[in-house]
């Protein structure tokens, strides 16, 4: 069947479906926003949860360092927690703002390119950054909790366990090194495709495929 024949058939079928469309008008009346916008909801909830978590980290960090001003190591832990919270809020806020600023009435290729670039940035930059931060952020969190507990018991934690911070840091470095070694071994023995297929790599592939598809569409 030629494309022009398809056009005639499409219009013939369209004329026959007119009654179905008329019946469905009630579905698209404005004001039913509680049932609408479902596909973006999980993303919005996820980012809102990230902002809430980030604000909690900021408040905890600030409250901690401001009450331990005489102990530079405690101040450092609080500041790290605060910076982590700020990063969480900034990343989520940036994404929500970018989504809100998108004008869906702009040409399709332009909007799809912007959306694909946002998705690619998330999987290429944001996710690895948080994975790396996540491998270490538990260290100041544990130290902050332990400092409060030991202070309540009247014990100076830094004196009682002077090697603790370094030991925790080594654990973090070891976890990252182990992950990197596993990745290197998978790559060395040609199993990267399996890793990409089963883990976050598929999201990267999808984001890159979307960008490629748009670029190809513009170029051809």
């Amino acid at each position, binding site marked *: 069947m030629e494309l022009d024949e*398809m056009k005639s058939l499409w219009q013939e079928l369209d004329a*026959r479906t007119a009654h179905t469309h008329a019946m469905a008008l009630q579905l*698209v009346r404005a004001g039913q926003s509680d049932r609408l916008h479902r596909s973006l909801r999980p993303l919005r909830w996820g980012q809102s949860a990230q902002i809430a978590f980030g604000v909690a980290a900021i408040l905890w960090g600030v409250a901690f360092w401001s009450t331990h001003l005489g102990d530079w190591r405690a101040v450092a832990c609080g500041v790290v927690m605060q910076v982590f919270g700020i990063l969480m809020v900034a990343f989520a806020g940036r994404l929500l703002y970018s989504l809100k600023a998108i004008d869906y009435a702009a040409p399709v290729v332009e909007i799809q390119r912007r959306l694909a670039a946002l998705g690619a940035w998330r999987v290429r930059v944001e996710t690895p950054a948080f994975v790396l931060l996540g491998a270490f952020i538990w260290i100041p969190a544990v130290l902050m909790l332990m400092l409060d507990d030991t202070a309540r018991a009247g014990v100076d934690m830094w004196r009682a366990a002077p090697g603790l911070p370094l030991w925790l840091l080594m654990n973090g470095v070891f976890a990252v090194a182990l992950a990197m070694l596993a990745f290197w071994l998978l790559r060395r023995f040609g199993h990267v495709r399996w890793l990409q297929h089963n883990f976050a790599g598929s999201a990267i592939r999808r984001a890159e495929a979307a960008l490629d598809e748009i670029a190809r569409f513009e170029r051809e």
Partner: protein
Amino acid sequence: MGKQFGWLAMVDGERQRRFEILLREHQRVVFKVAGVYARTPHDREDLAQEIAFQLWRSFASYDATHAKFSTWMYRVALNVAISHVRSVKHAGAEYIESLDGMHRDSLANGDASHVEALQRDERAAALHAFIGGLDPLNRALVLLYLEDRSYAEIAGVLGISPTNVATKLNRIKQNLRAQTVAAQTIGA
């Protein structure tokens, strides 16, 4: 202050009425775009609602001097639909169920003879399979072509040049012809 709020409410009410009239006139665009990009009939309804919601959100910035309502509507509807496809895993093959179902209902209600209806059904299935095999951007291009939009309007909706539109459509026509010849050769 109260007067100001009353005036704003009146403007908003007027805008909503205007929007509903325009949407009623052009509602078929919403359902056709949803039918082409959704996977199942349920998904089609959800997508149609999402498109309508985005149309209402964007309506405040709609400027009739810059674009026809239908052109503006296609842009919003296609942007929402393509984003929807990209956010849903494994979209594509299953969507045919939605579009095919939409058209199959109409064929069943038609007054054509049984043979004629069957032939049309087969051709409709081929049309749906063809659209289903296209990537989201080319699907938008073909939908606008099937809707008998001019090359200039298609270019305006998609954000590419009219020459590019013509080139792409020619290529699609050539591919279709080649596929038909190949199918006939295998069949013979």
